[in-house]
């Protein structure tokens, strides 16, 4: 019993209570019922009044217990890129044997409804988040909210955990394909006809497929490289006009290489990174923190 009381007090300290419009309704109702009861000593009204009072009174602890048994932590949530929406994952665990009801996760203007969380279970929620710029960021000020049971109070439980993440530069610029086309001679020789694709202005004129032009379509021939160079080298200075554009370009190429499993290296002013030495995330982190 004492243990339960201690637990309740601990939980109660963690939870904040805020008034709602229904808090006012309850107060008005209690006042109105009292006037009615006082009028003629209506015991039926007194009974209703006491029930309403007791419900409002017991709603507090019930609401606290409903929310207090929840624990929310951030979990690794994938990559974030500046200017692009990502998802921060929050894992909400109910450590009690009884379900929690009507719970909502709130964070920086967005909210996700959890509705019911069964006893001794967990749920993972995705919070949409768009980093405004590259670099290390922190995500905090999240809280769980519930109006259970009567909407007479809005209970909030702050998530003490802070999400520390890194936003990589926004992948932007020329595609890897364009880069390869521009630097074709240096990085391989065309050997086998591979197929046709739409001409986008960057291909050689000699690759134009004239037969398709005759049919009214502007297609170009693509060829597989006979041999690929051991390493693609992305030079920081050649990647764009300013630092941010360069970092965005490099980020785009790194991701494309990761997708195509191409080995590469990035030449930064003071350091050279290589996919055979560093992991992609390490390379991206270097770009993010440049």
């Amino acid at each position, binding site marked *: 019993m004492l243990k339960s009381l201690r637990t309740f007090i601990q939980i109660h300290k963690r939870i904040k209570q805020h008034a709602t419009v229904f808090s006012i309704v309850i107060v008005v109702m209690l006042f109105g019922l009292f006037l009615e009861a006082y009028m003629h000593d*209506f015991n039926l009204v007194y009974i209703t009044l006491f029930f309403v009072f007791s419900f409002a009174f017991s709603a507090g602890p019930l609401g606290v217990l409903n929310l207090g048994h929840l624990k929310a932590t951030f979990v690794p949530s994938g990559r974030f890129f500046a200017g692009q929406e990502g998802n921060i994952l929050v894992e909400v665990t109910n450590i009690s044997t009884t379900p929690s009801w009507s719970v909502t996760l709130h964070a920086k203007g967005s909210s996700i409804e959890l509705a*019911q969380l069964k006893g001794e279970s967990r749920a993972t929620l995705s919070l949409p988040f768009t980093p405004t710029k590259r670099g290390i960021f922190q995500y905090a000020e999240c809280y769980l909210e519930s109006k259970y049971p009567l909407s007479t109070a809005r209970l909030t439980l702050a998530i003490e955990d802070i999400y520390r993440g890194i936003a990589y530069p926004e992948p932007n610029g020329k595609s890897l394909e364009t880069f390869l086309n521009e630097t074709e001679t240096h990085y391989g020789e065309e050997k086998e006809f591979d197929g046709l694709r739409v001409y986008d202005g960057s291909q050689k004129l000699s690759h134009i497929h004239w037969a398709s032009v005759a049919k009214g379509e502007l297609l170009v021939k693509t060829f597989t490289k006979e041999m690929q160079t051991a390493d693609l080298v992305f030079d920081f200075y050649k990647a764009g006009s300013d630092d941010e554009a360069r970092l965005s370009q490099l980020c785009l190429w790194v991701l494309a290489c990761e997708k195509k499993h191409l080995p590469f290296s990035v030449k930064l002013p003071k350091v050279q990174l290589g996919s055979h030495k560093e992991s992609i995330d390490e390379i991206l982190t270097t770009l993010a923190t440049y």
Partner: protein
Amino acid sequence: MRFSLPSLPTKLDDLVLLDLAYIVVLLPLILMLKVPMILFSIIVLSLLYFKRTPAGNGLILFVFILGVLSVYLSMYGAFSFRGLSRLKLFLELLVYVLLVVVAMQRLTRKINFYLLISPFLFLALSLFFYHSIVMLTYVIFEVFFLLWMILTHRMQSDLVESFRSAMVMFMYSLPWVVVLFIFFPRISFEHANYGFKGETVQRMGHDGTMYLDNKALLVPSNRIVMEVGFEKQVPPSHYLYFRGSILYIDKKDHWEPIPPFVKRKNHVSYKKDGIKIAYKVTLYPTQKRWIYLLDIPQSPVKESVLDRDLISTVKHFIKEPIHYTARSTLNSKFYDKVDRYTLKVSSRFDPKQNPKTYEEALKIKNLYVSKKERAKAIVTFFHTKSLTYTLKPEPLDINHTTDSFLFDKKRGYCVHFASSFTTMARMAGIPARIVTGYKGDSSNALNNYLAVKEKDAHAWVELYMNEHWVRYETTSTASHIEINTVGSENEQTNSPTQSPLAKKINLYLMYAKYQVETWILYYSNIRQKQLLQYAKNNPRFIFIFVISLIALLIITFLIITYLKRPRYSSEALSILQPLLRSLKKKGFVRKKDESLHQYFMRYIEDNQEKKDLRIHIKEIDKIYELIVYRNLYTKELVQRLKKLIKEFHKI
């Protein structure tokens, strides 16, 4: 059952929840709706049923006009601006207006704040109109139902889950309600009417006059006039005379009291010898001013005045139930030094009106000197006349009522006996008067409780002898009692159609009703004080009270624990819980995303040396798999699983 059944379609739309709430709160109010409003409600319900899309402005305007018309027709003739001061009429108008407004909003199919709070307004309004045990039960149900609906909406869950939560909350609240109800300070002074006037409710029964003509044929009803709680057992019937009024003047067809303009000496100190008794009375609205006290009252109660004839009255008509504690001395005679006027009116008679009776009375008067002997002779005379007690007497000759009753019809009830006896006593030289009131029927008593009904209205006679008024129960002079008498007047008759068991059950129900009404419906400042006073003087009572409160807390706690038990997806999983708890207690915690099978296997691996345990857990795992994943649900398997889990604890 601790596992959930396959999900039933019990999730309801918010609008449906609100409709259900409205149905429940409007049910008692329907009983007071006038026909136009009922028709209006039916039309609105039909529109809601047939039109499943939000109503347009045209339809809402139509409903508004219809509503206003219905309100007008319902209140037609009963309402003026002065009528606003009549509380119930004003409240009735409020109910109608609210009904129209709610109907208009409901047709839009949009839930707004006003639509959400209106069920509570209807509930509060209905409490003005009803005040009975049925309503008490219904109010508790209403409160619970509204809580259930709110929780269903808040939890967005099925009705079963929200019902469990509502029950938990209700149980949490119950002890608080009980404690608050008992101890919340009640108002001792007059209650506010907020400028409204009271309502008029007419009741029958005893009144200030006594008719001998056809009006006397009215049979009083079974309605309870007052309920009396004695400190100990209810005294025997021959003590249960509740004084109402004293009638002195014979007006041929009826008897009247001394007119109020006649000034008589008041406040006479009476010597009161006999059994002293205290009792509590709940007197229901009579629309009269009499306070009924047992013969002989010791002192006035509350704000009443006890006159020289020991008649207790209050200044205003009794329009609300009143509760009072009174003290009386149970005796059939009391000393009184009457004034000349009273003596004169108590001796007045007209010999020409009842010559036959007069002749007989003179014989008695000449034969006996003492008034006591004369009275005895009159009683004997009545016995010799073979009078029949009946509630269906033939009409008497109004110009010669006593002669007609004693010598011709010979059939009557208390009124006729009392009237004739008084007349004859006066003729025999004994001052006499009629007392009307109620005579408690011991068959309506249980332990210390006595219900006094309208049919218990009674009349008896007081003769003035040796400076004492002596009570005479004149109906006891009847030689016959008509068995098929409808509704007994007092203890003389019992309804032959009712079996003793049914009568006993009825009495117990009435007793229960009385207790509920006394301690719940009409619990007041006085009752509260009485309770506290009683508690002060009785430590045993405090002990019982505290024990009862603890018992209530334990019961609610047990119910809450039962309701809060977690529900599992299958019966097998529910059966497994003691085992899982036991393993967890031993420090063997299930990992995140670990299946039960994996969990059991890990346990087996960790306990290789314990062969018995391994075999046991393996079998449990196997049976669980058969039941849950291979759908081989059989009673035998379930029993086996239960048995294995029991055995596991013993290993």
